[in-house]
């Protein structure tokens, strides 16, 4: 049978159609054009790249080289990176964080079986970014053998630095490293019964700075007698997840089952030694030694079951998920310090547990009565209950003791139904509409009043939200698409003053796409009005953007985009001004952000050997147009606090340039430069975080 087939004569149509000479010529046309196509695709893919590395241009032939029964494509880039920073190094590390040193900037390897019958594998795809010492590193790997297995791995590293100026006046700082890895193995990936095994690990380690409030007066909460002290935190967090699942394809139904075991632990510790006077030295409270251990170990095992049936006129999907979240914790804190009354020590011990069972179900029914009409209805139910006990004990100088057990119960149950309709009236005109109804019930039992009568007061609230959607899609030309959409929603009891209550969302998109040119435009407007007695919250967000990509020649491409992101909001606020003020003040807090963001990139290829890439990115928040943080001549202390934070004008620019020269078929030399300039017009709380940085690299890209 196979021999007949090999001859090609068994199929008369095939026999008649095969013209070896024509096929040979066609194949050679492909070879000639393949590289160009590859270059174009790579160039297009990399066009909007907004960081200078890695160099997108690959070494070697995009078609790869044949080795035995496999085809191999590879390209690796190694180089030296530098960064010179002036100004706020902390903000630079928070925004950019590229450093100096030798890196494996990128790596790409693909090995493909040419007949799909490799002995151990049919495909290996490996990609790397930033290995060595870059702040952002990743490795992806896929190894696959047809019919037998498929293995996917993702490993990532993120160096995180944040000085936390706006949240704690610079007293909170994080310099941590997060490692993440995911492994997924599918056995029998093309069969009707597939098995899935997975493992994920997520760790976060590193030093941090935090704060603690103390008063040594025997009260649980200090009030104005409190003083805040910096403490060192050693962050040690780890999560491990193990997954086991299966897909069963039977009688047209697809059943997916997954069980996962998730274990999390946080063993971060806090300590401080040395005399600290704190943020509120007028209290006379000092801290000389502090130590806190706070191990938290939790687990969130979950089950997932999904059943799917797809047919020509009907599709049904049902899913159930159950998560049984649990956490056990203990806290042991010792503080030594002083007050005007003399030396003090304080010990706090807390122990308890928390649980969060959560059940979610979905049923989605899709009906296709005609080729032009699609109707989908989805019902979902979610029930989550969070409960816990926390046994708190505070000892002060072994004479004053405060003890209580408190807890909080938070339960949420949401039932939502959504119906969507899509109808194609003409080939160039279609409509869609939808209706959503959601009902959410929240129950809360809380008890942490001071002193601590265990009243266990229970509260309930229900929110009903109805929303309607309407959209239209017009395609007047094959290359042109216009989308218009709108949504209007009404909620009767939103959870927070900033939640959706009476909202309208409008949107429009335009796209014109031909072979060498793409033009796009976008308009979005979201308006939410949540005004109630004593509080008038409204927000109005408008987004306009336009983009263009143009490739008039193989050697020249241009990509540009502009976005205007505008937000203005008004919040009713209540606050106290003055020590132990008798009555609160009410006011409106305005916030206006008016961001203009643009991106421009060009790429030239000179003599098919040299790639030049020039780009420019800018984010400019013009704020509300004012020239000074506070109104000129303002002396009212409240105005001086609130006015400067109504807007936050700044600019952030990042021009870049890169050259990549093909020295040989399998060797390229690259060099690039990127400049960062961050400037805050008014600063923030008297901090000015501006910086400018020159970063760059030189590298070689090679293929084996």
């Amino acid at each position: 049978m196979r021999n007949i087939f090999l001859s090609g004569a068994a199929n008369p149509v095939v026999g008649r159609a095969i013209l070896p000479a024509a096929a040979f010529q066609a194949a050679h046309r492909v070879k000639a054009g393949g590289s160009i196509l590859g270059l174009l695709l790579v160039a297009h893919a990399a066009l909007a790249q907004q960081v200078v590395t890695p160099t997108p241009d690959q070494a070697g032939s995009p078609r790869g080289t044949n080795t035995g029964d496999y085809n191999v494509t590879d390209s690796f880039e190694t180089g030296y990176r530098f960064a010179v920073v002036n100004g706020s190094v902390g903000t630079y590390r928070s925004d950019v964080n590229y450093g100096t040193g030798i890196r494996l900037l990128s790596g790409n390897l693909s090995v493909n079986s040419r007949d799909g019958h490799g002995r151990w594998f049919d495909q290996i795809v490996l990609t790397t970014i930033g290995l060595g010492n870059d702040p952002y590193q990743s490795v992806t790997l896929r190894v696959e053998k047809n019919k037998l297995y498929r293995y996917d791995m993702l490993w990532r590293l993120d160096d995180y630095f944040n000085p936390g100026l706006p949240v704690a006046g610079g007293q909170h700082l994080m310099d941590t490293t997060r490692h993440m890895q995911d492994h997924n193995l599918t056995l029998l990936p093309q069969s009707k019964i597939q098995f899935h095994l997975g493992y994920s690990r997520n760790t976060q380690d590193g030093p941090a700075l935090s704060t603690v409030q103390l008063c040594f007066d025997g009260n649980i909460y200090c009030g104005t007698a409190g003083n805040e002290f910096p403490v060192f935190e050693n962050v040690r967090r780890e999560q491990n997840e193990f997954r086991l699942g299966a897909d069963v394809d039977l009688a047209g139904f697809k059943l997916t089952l997954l069980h996962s075991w998730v274990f999390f632990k946080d063993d971060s510790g806090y300590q401080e030694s040395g005399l600290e006077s704190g943020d509120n030295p007028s209290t006379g409270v000092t801290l000389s030694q502090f130590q806190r251990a706070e191990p938290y170990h939790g687990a969130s095992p979950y089950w997932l079951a999904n059943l799917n049936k797809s047919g020509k006129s009907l599709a049904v999907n049902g899913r159930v998920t159950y998560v049984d979240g649990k956490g056990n914790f203990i806290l042991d804190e010792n503080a030594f310090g002083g007050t005007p009354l003399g030396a003090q020590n304080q010990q706090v011990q807390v122990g308890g547990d928390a649980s969060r069972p959560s059940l979610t179900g979905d049923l989605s029914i899709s009906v296709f009565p005609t080729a032009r009409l699609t109707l989908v209805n989805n019902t979902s139910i979610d029930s989550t209950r969070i409960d816990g006990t926390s046994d708190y004990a505070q000892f002060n100088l072994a004479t004053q003791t405060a003890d209580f057990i408190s807890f909080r119960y938070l339960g949420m149950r949401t039932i939502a139904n959504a119906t969507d309709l899509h109808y194609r009236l003409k080939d160039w005109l279609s409509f869609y509409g939808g209706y959503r109804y959601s009902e959410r019930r929240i129950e809360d039992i809380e008890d942490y009043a001071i002193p601590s009568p265990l009243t266990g007061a229970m509260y309930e609230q229900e929110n009903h939200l109805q929303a309607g959607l309407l959209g239209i899609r017009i395609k007047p030309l094959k290359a042109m698409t216009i989308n218009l959409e709108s949504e209007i929603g009404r909620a009767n009891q939103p959870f927070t003053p900033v939640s959706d209550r009476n909202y309208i969302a409008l949107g429009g998109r335009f796209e014109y796409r031909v072979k060498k040119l793409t033009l796009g435009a976008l308009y979005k407007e979201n308006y939410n009005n949540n005004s109630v007695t004593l509080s008038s919250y409204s927000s109005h967000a408008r987004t306009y953007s336009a983009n263009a990509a143009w490739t008039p020649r193989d050697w020249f491409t241009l990509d540009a985009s502009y976005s205007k992101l505008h937000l203005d909001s008004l919040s009713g606020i209540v606050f106290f001004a003055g020590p132990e003020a008798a009555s609160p003040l009410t006011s409106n807090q305005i916030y206006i952000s008016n961001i203009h963001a643009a991106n421009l990139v060009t790429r030239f290829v000179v003599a098919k050997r040299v790639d030049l890439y020039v780009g420019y990115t800018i984010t400019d928040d013009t704020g509300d147009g004012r020239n000074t943080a506070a109104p000129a001549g303002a002396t009212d202390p409240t105005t001086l606090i609130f006015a400067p934070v109504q807007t936050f004008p700044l600019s952030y620019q990042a021009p870049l340039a890169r050259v990549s020269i093909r020295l040989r078929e399998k060797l390229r030399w690259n060099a690039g430069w990127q400049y960062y300039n961050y400037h805050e017009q008014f600063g923030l709380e008297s901090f000015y975080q501006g910086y400018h940085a020159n970063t760059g690299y030189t590298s070689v890209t090679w293929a084996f």
Partner: protein
Amino acid sequence: MSRWLLLVCACVPLIAADDYVGSAACKTCHADVWFNFYKNPHYKSIASGDQPPDRTGCEGCHGPGKAHVEAHGGKTTIPRAFSLMQPKAVLDTCLTCHASNFSKSNIRRSQHSLADVVCTNCHSIHKSPAPQFLLARKQTELCYGCHADVRAQFSMPFKHRVNEGFMACTDCHNPHGTFAPTWGMADRPRLVDRAEGNEQACLKCHADKRGPFAYEHPPVRVEGCGVCHMPHGSTNAKLLVRPVVFTLCLRCHNGADSFGTRNNGIPALSNTHNMLDPRYQRCTLCHVRIHGSNSDGYFFR
């Protein structure tokens, strides 16, 4: 060349229905497509050799090719020429095989499908430059192509590291549609994926915010992280929606109306909080465990 011919012939289905001509016939004229097709995930259907003609090779997607061959080409003679097909027809064709994939459970109701953004808008079956998933372009560039406003957000000073290659859009989003979110209401936000089956995508990485905590900060669970953070990018540190933290907190903590868990307004600040004092403008200086605490209802430790 002959080796290729032998290989191709070997892969043609053994039994072809009357109108099916087999992939080898297609290769004759479409050598450019065939040349690298062994790298294509769809090649598995050919390599397996056990698929019926309507589920393998070129005709598995494009339909039986006899008429096309007999007419010596022409797009209109291809039963399923994707560039001529309406979006729903494209979706139906791809879902013939891919419908039962769990990640596509909600594709019929996804915002993309409703807007007629279907498979071939993002996937290039024959000329994909991406190493995986047959994407028409590198993933971020693909998404930025339509979502220029999101691209602007990822170019802001504070952002998740998508442009840097550490993350991808699909770490948080499922472009094929998602189940209704368990936070927020009215199916919003859309196309945001789940962590652990039914939690916010943020918790996939930020596991320390997952809890459960004895004292949850309720809006984190009820409304989601987006109530305080802008997940793509922001001009404010920590991706906050406001440049300083006290303006963020005061938006909700005003005691007004029936908001909050107590049904009588979210508690306003006590009179010990003198906002003229910079200490009280830095709320998280004391309320350090603002996402949730196990030992303190006011998130002090």
